[in-house]
């Protein structure tokens, strides 16, 4: 933990007696890109605000670079925030907004102009320096909010859904841009989003949250391939989640059939969640698959087909480059690797 730049120990936060964060432990390494991912209201913003110093935790410690900062006011913390609602200064033009932090640090005027111009260029706002904030679109305002924080080159940058107001194309561009910048300048990013795709493409580490509790922490690949519970599996990607029973190590039963799997350590006869990714199911001709079902719907998605296939009374979501017409009975196969066994959530 010695190269942790931000560390949260047992953070608990209540609003009006309601627990919003429940015993959060989080360690962020220098230059890491960490994403807090979870549905709306799960406590992402609150976590970020505790790191920024805008909320005080009811319990627990916040460390910055090894120093306890629970009582350090926000203006003394060496980190900057891109706020969810931009919070730009309405009485200053674009240039002055971005220059605000530099001016407070009494930086040389020439250097300020230099840095701000560079930011404007980077964010495709080259001739916008003199514009008033209310003359800009939401997307432009959002980029200025990022520029205003980034220009200070803080050790840690907190970003609260910074791309939320952008259209898909610009969002993809900015995702790429932010990631490249983060690598290039070497800033630690703590990034909040509810968009799992964004989290998967940008992060070094993803922290999946729900109801104020960290559900899982890991690399995007780990999170995607080895979700620890049904919530993570479902939230991270579309999933088929079935009720199953463990018969033995490496043996699970669901939909009335026994399957080989790779999981051990569950009790015999323990009820479990079985998670199967839509792209892991393969279509076979009728009679050749272990499972058999009727195609209910087919949608072409560009690269693959998305099908709903009814097996007994469970509707499987299947992504495949093969296709079978609606109404046809098909077989489904899967390998032991494709079956993920999870403890039943409550």
């Amino acid at each position, binding site marked *: 933990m010695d190269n942790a730049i931000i560390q949260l120990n047992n953070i608990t936060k209540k609003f009006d007696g309601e627990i919003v964060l429940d015993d959060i432990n989080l360690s962020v390494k220098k230059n890491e890109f960490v994403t807090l991912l979870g549905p709306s209201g799960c406590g992402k913003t609150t976590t970020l605000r505790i790191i920024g110093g805008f909320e005080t935790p009811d319990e627990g410690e916040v460390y910055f670079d090894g120093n306890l900062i629970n009582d350090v006011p*926000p*203006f003394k913390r060496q980190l900057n*925030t891109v706020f969810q609602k931009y*919070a730009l200064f*309405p009485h200053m033009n674009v240039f002055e907004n971005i220059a*605000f*932090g530099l001016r407070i640090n009494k930086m040389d005027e020439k250097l300020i102009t230099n840095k701000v111009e560079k930011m404007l260029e980077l964010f495709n706002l080259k001739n916008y320096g003199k514009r008033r904030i*209310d003359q800009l679109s939401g997307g432009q305002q959002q980029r200025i909010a990022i520029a205003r924080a980034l220009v200070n080159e803080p050790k840690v940058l907190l970003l609260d859904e910074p791309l939320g107001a952008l259209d898909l194309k610009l969002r993809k561009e900015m995702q790429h841009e932010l990631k490249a910048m983060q690598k290039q300048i070497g800033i630690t990013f703590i990034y909040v989003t509810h968009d799992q795709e964004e989290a998967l493409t940008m992060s070094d580490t993803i922290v999946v949250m729900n109801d104020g509790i960290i559900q899982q922490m890991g690399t995007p690949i780990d999170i995607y391939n080895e979700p620890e519970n049904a919530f993570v599996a479902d939230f991270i990607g579309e999933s088929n989640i079935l009720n199953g029973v463990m018969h033995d190590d490496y043996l699970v039963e669901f939909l009335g059939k026994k399957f080989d799997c790779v999981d051990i350590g569950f009790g015999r006869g323990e009820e479990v969640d079985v998670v199967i990714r839509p792209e892991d199911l393969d279509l076979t001709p009728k009679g050749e698959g272990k499972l058999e079902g009727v195609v209910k719907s087919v949608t072409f998605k560009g690269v693959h087909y998305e099908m709903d296939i009814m097996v007994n009374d469970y509707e499987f979501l299947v992504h495949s480059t093969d296709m079978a017409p609606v109404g046809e009975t098909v077989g489904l196969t899967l390998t032991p690797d494709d079956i993920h066994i999870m403890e039943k959530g409550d």
Partner: protein
Amino acid sequence: MKDRTKYFAYPYVLWIIIFIVFPSFLVLLYSMTTKESNGLTTIQFTLENFKKFFNPLYINILWDSIYLAAISTVICLLLGYPAAYIISKAHLSKRNTLLFLCILPMWMNMLLRTYAWMTILGNNGIINNLLSFLGLPTFNMLYTRGATVMGMVYNFLPFMILPVYTALSKMDIGILEAADDLGANKYVKFRKIILPLSMPGVISGIIMVFMPAVSTFIIPQLLGGNKNMMIGNLIEKLFILNGDWNFGSSISIIMMIIILIAMSIMNKFDVDKEGGARLW
């Protein structure tokens, strides 16, 4: 489809014509005619009434009124801004009580309030009684310029506090947090964010205090005495004592022009075109 909603404005327009346009027109007419014109047949236009005003005697009274009103406005600002700031920062449950206390004196008749000050400031008033009781020398406070200024500050302070409070309490907390986040301590935050963003409220407050202050006649009459005449007293005197409605009207028109000019200059300072807390 015809837009019928415009008819709803008619009573209001009628009201404006009867009570604002028509009297103003009469004042204008009086200011530009001679005393002898007492009917349409005998009407005689003249600029004599305006010329008469450009006499050091009257000009001095005008300057003095502007000076006293300006001082009162500055004092109102110096007292009102911190008061508004404190109220806006107070806990929600206390905020309404504090605001209520600010407005409470306005529920009493202004004449009564001002009379009350006479009994406080008078030679045998409360303050001097207290001073002599403590064995200290007493002061002649009533019928001074200071008393006039004090009366104006007392009467018009709420008109400063309310618009400034509105501007301060409307301020987006997110913006203040952003300033914190970028390293601004509370002094920098006040100077660079809070003060500029509350300017629309300050300007409204200045206008709302200066306008009644510059034209008041009750306060200088009761607290300032005869020596400390303001322009409002002059106009009142011309109308009531001298019966010179024409000269009185011309001074009223000159006052109106001065106030209009002052207002438009103030509005130039108002950078926040979004509206902020502008009352005008």
